[in-house]
């Protein structure tokens, strides 16, 4: 049986970033994911903000990695063809007391190395963010904040890592781990062996660590409910709008996602159940009230979608360390916000830890750093769209009406690994618009079934137990 140099558990943005970074070197790498597709855990419900590094305690690991990650993300997104937009963020003060705190925040952020910070006054805000509440007194402006699609980043990182030799195993859940001569990871798909083991299991990082007897941290899911608004409201804000942060969270934000939908949220609720992704009336009320305080134009009827995500919190900082008690085992845990931003810096840090614990990192002769940008019709100007259709008529065959997704984009997504309806949604945006898939679901199921050979009745929303329909009458 094959012995990998490194096995990574968890294919979220952290695992994917580490795998891509390690795929530069002459190493056998495997990534194990318990879900049917990548990015189906914490990463899928991330807001997509690439933070500048503000709102982190001075001297914190997450603050340091966030500032580094903000810089690294730019190059990675260029190499992988993922859209990164530097939109900038405003932390807005509504009282004199809050106004004073802006200076503190600025100082703290500057000590972490956040560049180009500026305190702007109400006149500036009126001019640059005309929809912002007139009660806003001042704001801390961080121009380096950006926005990215979190799941597309994971897919593209993984695709690039795979191209450079990393192996991905989905529906492969680690159930027990033993350290003998090698790490022996028992999974739902058999036993995997490796010399080094990286735990990037997100919400379940404590469970994985416990399998090797290291149980000095606990992951407490902190639920965040997010509410997406219709793309028609795209021009509500120009930048990411934050209130002053509290001790546990950055507060309820008004942002524009990478796909152009404004989004309001998240809540911050410590819960017990790692599967609890429910949304509540109270959550909605809470978020709406807070968001409207900043942008009064927001209306409940603009909401077209909502979801909840769980931040894998463990204390107030990231836990990234080599476990000396179990040589070769690296925990990457408690990666809550700003984990998406920090991910490329975390990957570098993990490489460093691996080196220090005895792994030789030898560069490959050829590392393919670039991938061809995935085409999304809705982002292309008409002229380009015409050229695309000329090349492939499938681009002219619109499947999803709300988000203008073509049949070709759907088949491309399936070729790149989409297996489920959610996988198609995250990759292409089909079903993500205002009609919520009422129009395109049947067609998407058919394309998915034809391309993958999975019978229509076995097409799922997101893997086991989530079949879309229960019976095919033609089988009766």
């Amino acid at each position, binding site marked *: 049986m094959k012995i990998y140099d490194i096995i990574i558990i968890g294919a979220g943005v952290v695992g994917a970033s580490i795998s891509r970074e390690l795929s530069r070197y002459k190493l056998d790498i495997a990534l194990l994911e318990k879900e049917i597709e990548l990015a189906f855990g914490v990463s899928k419900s991330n807001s997509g903000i690439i933070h500048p590094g503000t709102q982190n305690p001075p001297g914190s690991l997450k603050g340091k990695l966030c500032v580094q990650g903000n810089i690294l993300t730019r190059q990675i997104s260029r190499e992988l063809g993922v859209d990164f937009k530097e939109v900038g963020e405003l932390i807005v003060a509504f009282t004199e007391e809050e106004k004073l705190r802006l200076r503190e925040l600025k100082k703290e952020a500057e000590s972490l190395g956040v560049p180009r910070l500026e305190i702007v006054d109400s006149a500036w805000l009126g001019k640059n963010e005309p929809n912002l509440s007139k009660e806003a007194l001042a704001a801390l402006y961080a121009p380096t904040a950006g926005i990215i699609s979190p799941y597309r980043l994971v897919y593209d990182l993984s695709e690039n890592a795979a191209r450079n030799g990393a192996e991905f195993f989905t529906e492969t859940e680690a159930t027990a781990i033993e350290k003998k001569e090698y790490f022996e990871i028992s999974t739902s798909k058999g036993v995997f062996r490796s010399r080094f083991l990286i735990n990037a299991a997100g919400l379940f990082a404590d469970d994985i660590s416990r399998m090797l007897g290291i149980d000095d941290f606990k992951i407490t899911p902190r639920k965040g409910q997010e509410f997406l608004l219709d793309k*028609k409201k795209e021009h509500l804000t120009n930048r990411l709008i934050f209130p002053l942060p509290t001790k546990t969270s950055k507060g309820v934000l008004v942002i524009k996602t990478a796909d152009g939908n404004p989004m309001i949220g998240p809540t911050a609720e410590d819960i017990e159940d790692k*599967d609890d*992704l*429910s*949304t*509540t*009336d109270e*959550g*909605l009320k809470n978020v709406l009230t807070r968001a409207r305080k900043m942008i009064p134009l927001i209306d*409940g*009827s603009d*909401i*077209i*979608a*909502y*979801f909840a995500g769980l931040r894998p919190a463990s204390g107030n900082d990231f836990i990234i360390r080599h476990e000396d008690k179990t040589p070769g085992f690296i925990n990457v845990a408690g990666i809550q916000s700003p984990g998406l931003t920090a991910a490329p810096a975390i990957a570098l840090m993990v490489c460093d830890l691996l080196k220090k614990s005895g792994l030789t990192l030898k560069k490959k002769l050829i590392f393919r750093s670039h991938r061809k940008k995935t085409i999304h019709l809705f982002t292309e100007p*008409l002229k380009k*769209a*015409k050229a695309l*259709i*000329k090349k492939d*008529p*499938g681009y*002219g*065959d*619109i499947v999803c*009406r709300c988000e*203008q997704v*073509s*049949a070709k984009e759907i088949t491309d997504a399936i070729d790149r690994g989409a297996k489920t*309806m959610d996988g198609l949604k995250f990759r292409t945006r089909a079903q993500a618009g*205002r*009609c*919520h*898939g*009422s*129009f395109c*679901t*049947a067609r998407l*199921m*058919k394309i998915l079934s034809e391309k993958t050979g999975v019978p*229509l*009745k076995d097409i*799922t*929303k*997101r*893997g*086991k*137990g*989530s*079949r*879309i*329909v*229960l*019976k*095919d*009458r*033609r089988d009766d």
Partner: protein
Amino acid sequence: MIERELVIVGAGPGGMAAAISAYENGVRDILLLERDQYPGGILNQCIHTGFGLDYFKEILTGPEYAERFIKKIKAIPEIELSLRSFVTLLTGDKLLTYFKPGRIETVKARCLIMATGCREKTREMVHIGGTRPSGIFSAGLAQKLINIDGLLPGEEIVIVGSGDIGLIMARRFTLEGAKVKAVIEIQDKTRGLLRNVVQCVTDFDIPLYFNHKIVKIFGKDRVTGVSVARVDSDMREVTGTGFKIDCDTVLLSVGLIPENELIEMAGVRIDKKTNCPVSDETNKTSVPGLFVCGNAFMVYDLADSVSKDSEAAGRLAAEYLKKIGRAG
């Protein structure tokens, strides 16, 4: 760029009636754009009867009703029916861009009728809390899956809202052998036609709860149930009235919204609450020569009424073209 006398977007009961009427009133150059691979629109999946009573004085199914119009359209060479044609852009001076497999076309319409129909409100628009597993469908999607694709979405169904499609699907699911456990309506009366309540729900002994709402949807991967509670006259949940219904499927039939994103893009005034064009007269909009008919203008109860009012849009278009002096 190609210029056409009259362009009609949507070949459902509205667009087809408008096209025929425009022709009968003298328009001789009509382009009828339909995004689907067949004309007929939503009628194709409405295999139940009840269509045509007003218009043809006959009882027809949806596809039969559509067929009457399709035959007429096909017999008129001056009506060009372009299928799989998906309009993505519309400007205030009636420039349309549409996608077809293999190409993108831009056409200038001297006169334009939008017959784009409506879409169903989603769970998100009525803010139902809980999880997001599979098994949550708009009633219309469930209808399409059963009637067009031969797929059974679920076996134990709770229907939210008593819109006509929801009521009809209560009967449809029952006939397919599924168990419809309840229809939950937040108002004190049905949103749909009385005949549908009787024929599709009461006749099948399906419990219909008025003044009740779904509070939460449960289930991790697939729906496992819903919680229901009574509401007071202000639609607020009455404490202590909650109960749970186990089910694997939730159907939404909570209202329809005119599909007017294209004319909104073109600068036509839209009522924010109803998504209908702001207008004093049926089918007219704030832009001269741009008409809207059928469910895109206002949500009708019957396809027959859609056809009737859409005929009027065809006449208005013909009159408009005569007035600007180049019709026929």
